[in-house]
């Protein structure tokens, strides 16, 4: 398992996801207030972050995405970029320093085929999907990595997530930390 140059090049071209605001309108400010209020009912940051994927089931998001888009569908769905963006909002609100980041995950072709079909049906970009290595947005808090979609800490390259094995990870503007071949 490793991050080859093709996957690295593909992933490096994917921007970190930021939810946008409709200029001159209150819709996105209002939606952001409602969304943040959903999580701030929880008393501690860990619970707030854990509530993100429980509230917004992981699934396709069409980018660029606006805050007011999130509350539109009957079933609340969001991808890892939204999850990481929301986690970042809550961490800032709690005064916790952190950085956005990205991971490359060896997920396996069987899983990738399902995600490819689902993202295409939703007319969402599948640029995050390689043949078996996928791009995943994460957050770094101190020297630990937080997966906002799986709501769990992970140690970095080599860590096992439900989605697969982390083969590489980097801060948004940092260098890749690669899985040791040993």
């Amino acid at each position, binding site marked *: 398992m490793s991050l080859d140059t093709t996957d690295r090049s593909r992933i490096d071209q994917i921007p970190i996801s930021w939810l946008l605001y409709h200029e001159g309108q209150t819709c996105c*400010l209002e939606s952001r207030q409602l969304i943040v*209020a959903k999580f701030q*009912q929880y*008393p501690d940051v*860990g*619970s707030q972050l854990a509530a993100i994927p429980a509230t917004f089931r992981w699934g396709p998001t069409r980018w660029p995405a606006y805050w007011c888009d999130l509350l539109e569908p009957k079933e609340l769905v969001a991808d890892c970029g939204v999850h990481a963006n929301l986690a970042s909002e809550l961490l800032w609100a709690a005064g916790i320093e952190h950085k956005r980041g990205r991971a490359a995950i060896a997920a396996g072709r069987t899983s990738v085929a399902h995600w490819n079909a689902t993202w295409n049906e939703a007319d969402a970009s599948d640029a995050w999907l390689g043949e078996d290595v996928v791009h995943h947005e994460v957050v770094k808090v101190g020297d630990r990595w937080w997966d906002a979609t799986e709501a769990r800490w992970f140690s970095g390259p080599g860590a096992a997530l439900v989605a697969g094995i982390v083969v590489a990870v980097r801060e948004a503007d940092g260098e890749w930390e690669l899985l040791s071949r040993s």
Partner: protein
Amino acid sequence: MPIRTIVISGMHSGPNPSPGVGLARSLRAARPDLRIVGADHSPASSGLHDEVLDDVLRFPGWDEIHEDTWLTQMADLVADEETALLPTMDLEVRLLAVGLGEHDRILAPSKSALDVVRKPATAVADALGMTTARFERDTTRAAVERFTRHAPYGVWVKGEHYEAFRAHSPEEALAMGAFIEEAWGGSWHLEEHLPGQECGLAFSARDGVLLDAIFTTKALVTPEGKTWSGDISEISDDLWRRLSDFVADVGWNGGGEVELIRTWTGGLIVMELNPRFPAWIHGATLAGANLPATIIGEPSTRGARTLGPGFTRVVHEIAVRPELGLPAFPWGPSDMTAPASKHPSGMRALGRRHLLVGDLPVRSSFSGGAENVTAHDDEVTSPRRVLARSHAFEADLTSPDGGAATPRREIFPARLEAQVAALRAELADLPNVLIAHSIKTCPHPGLLAVAARLGLVAEAISLDELDAGIDAGFDVEKSILNGPAKWWPERPEVRCWAFFADSVAELEQLQRKLDDGFRLHTEVVGIRIAPRSVVSRFGIPMERPEEIARVAELVRDLCERLGADWGIHFHHAESVLGPERWRREAAGSLALADPLTARIGKPPAVVDFGGGWHVDDLPLVRESIAHVVKWGPAVLREGSPTLVLEPGKLITEPAAAIVTRVLIGSKRNKGCEVVVDAALGDLPEARWRGHPVARWTGTEWAALREGRDRILGRSCMETDLLVGNVDLTDVGEGDHLAFGLCGAYDLSMAYPFGRGRAAEGLR
């Protein structure tokens, strides 16, 4: 002399397994030639059938053993210098330590070491540089109520010897505590539940020398919270040093497991220390660290090993040993199927035999204890404490010697005045605050008049209530209407200062009523917001922009039609939520004032914080409001709305008491009980919270203390239990007793059951 035979106890292997099978597998992996004997007290202990065992030893169930005979058998087992005993059941370990003392070939800690690690594990936490969860050993109803109210995630009810249950209410906690006492014997205490990841620190030691240790972070747990899979890692050098010092200080022998919670920020909290290896210990062996092997003389591999990532359990079936057979299906007294249990051999019976005694070292870690002053705090260290927070109510009671009829209610207007003054002092630095008197909570005419005279505003949930308030002297121009049916009974015209609609349907109905000629004079059109995480039938939920838009549209329209400002109201009883949860709920719910402000076009003129405050929480009111101002909507910080507080029972509970007489007394199990001439109808809150009780000694009223006795109401209802866990040693037939803190719902919700009268009010 090398150990050639080892006897391991605790062989049950079910969803909640004992450690025996895992230990046998680890020892077999280290020493294929070792003779391993599985010992247990029931053939229903499934691990006895595992082929890893060379032999099995069956003892009678724990409820059948003869203590001296069992100790003799245990001593005989280890009489052979090549045989060691590895006990794995907590109570068994303690019983061996007490009965046989220290022994070279009993691979378990000594009595003195066990005394150090009693729950709550404060000594362990100190030694490891960690903390414990907050705990409370005082199991009187008042203390349990207080601790539970201040534990926003719920509490654990933990037995001295075994068992832990999670509870979310005082009733649950008390019931579970009673169960633990009954099932296991010994005492119990409360610990605050902490959200986090379950971890474990397993270690092995001989004679005070730490041999090996590893750390696990549990990945999967069973519904009972038992480990199913986890990762395995080495412990830090610092933790190794601290653990080594602790093991040396207490002279630890055998295995041990420190149960830990890792918080989201990474801190470790000690839950308890188990005096034996954990049941998952073979998972560590499979990952590369065979701790059990070290206590039979094999060298530790620490420092020279690369651990695998972890372990997981799987379920597989094995054949039953013919010589043991399979006990038949155990029929119970009901039609429920008896599930596999961790204690098929009757371990609970051992607990009930009270073979283990000792002093309790620490009483409470509850930081709020000293702040919540009671009239009897000087008796906090007494082994038998006063029954409940009395607020010194007995000082106001009159002498019963005049022969006044019982049961009767005594009213203390000065108490209401004092509570209001104290609350005002708390809120002195807040501008624009109104204190409302909840009429439904305390509709006593005399107390209503006092509240009106003190300048409180009336808060009513019906127009009948509002009438009562006006009759008592409240200013209608400053009255507040709340609840889902505030316009009942129907009137052509209503005057109030503010109302808070409970639903969108109510706002829409009000529009129609106004269209039909209803005349409403109000300064504030308000809405009650639904709580965010508490299930409630009340309030308007607003999760999506279209819901905000609809509410804002209705409020704006009504404000224009009535020439009024708008307001927002949060209410969920603080006495139920506790201060920490209340703050969170209030801040989260009222946060919707910001998007509503944007839609309505102006900030709220009134923010109502609701009521139902616990009488003990008066010193926390200001702090709670400050929290909501800080973390709630920006309009609270940037604007200057009028703040309304509906303290309810906080100000009225101390203003009444009920005096009763003992009709009859009788013995009951270990205590006694009396029937009094008051009943649940006179004291309806008795089902939900403890009341302080005082006894007339002939010269004064004296507070009763906790005990094993109970006071029953005179009615024929099974639920007519007024007070439990009270000491009635000096109480006899004809004595006068008094219940305090009866000035709230005990007053407004009382009913005349058992007096030959129908309830009044309905015509």
